[in-house]
């Protein structure tokens, strides 16, 4: 997950499909995000590289659609419905996740455990 400037970012990702839950007038996903290119990356407790300005999942509500779909706390979101999330501001990320006419969001998320799992399987 390290970012080398000028080189494409490569990561092992997991596809997660979240069906939004309708609560009154809102469609909620059931998790909280942090990060963004306009935020301070050193405050991020989940990132391995403290210069990483990506979008991270900071909280997952119990029993919410995100937990059911398999999202875990600390995940870095790489794409949402095809839109890139590695170089976006915090507000742009929020907007891409909370579009009112989309009932389903398909995320590509990555986490360190994925990377380690792949490495282990490759080594063994």
């Amino acid at each position, binding site marked *: 997950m390290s970012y080398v400037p000028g080189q494409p970012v490569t990561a092992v990702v997991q596809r997660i499909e979240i069906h939004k839950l309708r609560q009154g007038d809102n469609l*909620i*996903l059931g998790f*909280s995000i942090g990060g963004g290119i*306009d*935020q*301070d990356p050193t405050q991020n407790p989940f990132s391995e590289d403290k210069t990483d300005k990506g979008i991270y999942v900071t*909280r997952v509500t119990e029993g919410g659609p995100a937990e059911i779909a398999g999202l875990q706390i600390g995940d870095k979101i790489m794409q949402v419905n095809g839109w890139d999330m590695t170089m976006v501001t915090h507000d742009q990320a929020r907007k891409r*996740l909370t579009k009112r006419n989309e009932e389903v969001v398909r995320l590509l998320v990555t986490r360190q455990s994925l990377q380690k799992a792949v490495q282990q399987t490759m080594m063994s």
Partner: protein
Amino acid sequence: MDSCTVPKATLPYAWLELLSPGAWLSPSAACPPLQNVLLWEHLIAELRILICNALGSEQREQPFPFLRAEPGPAFKIESLKVTVDFLKVPLGLKKPPLKEAVAVPGPGKAKPPGVERHKPRRADSMDNESQYSGYSYKSGHSRSSRKHRDRRDRHRSKSRDGSRGDKSVTIQAPGEPLLDNESTRGDERDDNWGETTTVVTGTSEHSISHDDITRITKDMEDSAHLDCSRHLGVALAGALALLAFLTPLAFMLLPQLLWREELEPCGTPCEGLFISVAFKLLILLLGSWALFFRRPKAFFPRVFVFRALLMVLVFLLVVSYWLFYGVRILDSRDRNYQGIVQYAVSLVDALLFVHYLAVVLLELRQLQPQFTLKAVRSTDGASRFYNIGHLSIQRAAIWILENYYHDFPVYNPALLNLPKSVLSKKMSGFKVYSLGEENTTNNSTGQSRAVIAAAARRRDNSHNEYYYEEAEHERRVRKRRARLVVAVEEAFTHIKRLQDEDQKNPREIMDPREAAQAIFASMARAMQKYLRTTKQQPYHTMESILQHLEFCITHDMTPKAFLERYLSAGPTIQYHKDRWLAKQWTLVSEEPVTNGLKDGVVFVLKRHDFSLVVSAKKIPFFKLSEEFVDPKSHKFVMRLQSETSV
């Protein structure tokens, strides 16, 4: 030309006063449209007449036949009645009938400031006349009797301040200048009122000193009738100054005159001392001229303490020097001339130091601001704040007055009251009927209580009316203002300055006055309507507008610059001096007026229809501390992580 100042009747529909230097009528109830058309034609005719008169033709009596051609007998009767009353004016007789003749509704106030604004007198010369007649009234009484009466009246005036104001306004003859009436015909109107206005001028003792005698004599021609106690002070100070100036010269000359033969000859040291005396006296003369020889700007009710102190000091100094001189030198015929000359030089030095003391006491001490004065006008709440140094209350009052005339917008009594329609709709009345069974005593109290309770419960909508009335007025003013601006802009496009290369025949070339008159007619109507809507028409006569227009044309001003004077109410000093600048103010104070200002001092400067309440606050003591900021310490980081739940 006198014909232009022939008194014209003031008719309720107010077009004709446009043509005279007098004040314009207060807003009458809506001018009938038919009359407007007629009046427009009359206006043009009248203007033509005026211009002909100015050029010297023989149409002197034209205005009156023109008036008689008015349709409707009612107008004719009124106009004649008004002219008759008007002729009585210079004689100073009471003119209450004129109030009915004017019949100006005004905004319906109990006091007739609306009536005041109606000015039947058309001639400015008559203004000046009336001013002097007031002064002659004062000079008719001897000083002592007036002083005595003034002291008595000062006690009376303080207790009767409110009533005095009422009395003066109701009896005041309509149409006279708003503020400067005390000096005119005081005795024919309310004799109490005439007396109390002399409070300020009557009891001053030597409040002015070291003034130029020649300038005072010039003032004396203007106001020769004022009491001579004021000039006593000036004369005393002048005599003292002269004495102090001549004393060193006398010291040096007397031995030469009296016992020349016995004196020891003294060469160079004496000559050096002579030169130094000469130059020091010259410097003293110039310094005194710079410091003291000034037109007095005010007339203080009490002795000016510092000046009195300085005079006493100078007097003591000179007397003690003469004493010693007389005893030690004249009696004993001292022969050491150099010593005598040094004695004279020491006197001159002492006088220079007294002059320095005068500079510090009179000029320097009050420069550093120590107090903030808040001056509030009692009638409409206009207020200003001023910073001022250590001054006595009377000097602070004069200082406030000097600033009042150029800071405060002019006092317009027409703007004071709520419109009549708002106030009249108050208790339209709950009628309580008794059914006949209860006894009467219970009824009355029960009735009144019921009425009051009902009125309290009922929704009072007068604020609503006030709001809408204000909005409507605002709209009207803006509409008229727009029309005025457009009319003036258009009028200004009709003339331009003559360039040298243009060849025009001499008949077409006009001087500023003619140019002003030429373009005035096209904007006159819009101007009059605007002034009437903003209730400013007493302050601007047609003559004054023409003069201002001439002034603006001469100096190549734009229409906006011309209009600046009319679109907003300016300070009092902007208006014609004789009419609006009052010179008499009364200082009301609980502390003696020669006391210095202190924190919390309040004093009131009264005129007969409004007053300025002034309160003093001390400027706080500032504790200033220092903090050093290293320029390299300015560093920034991004904001903290924010978390959004989706």
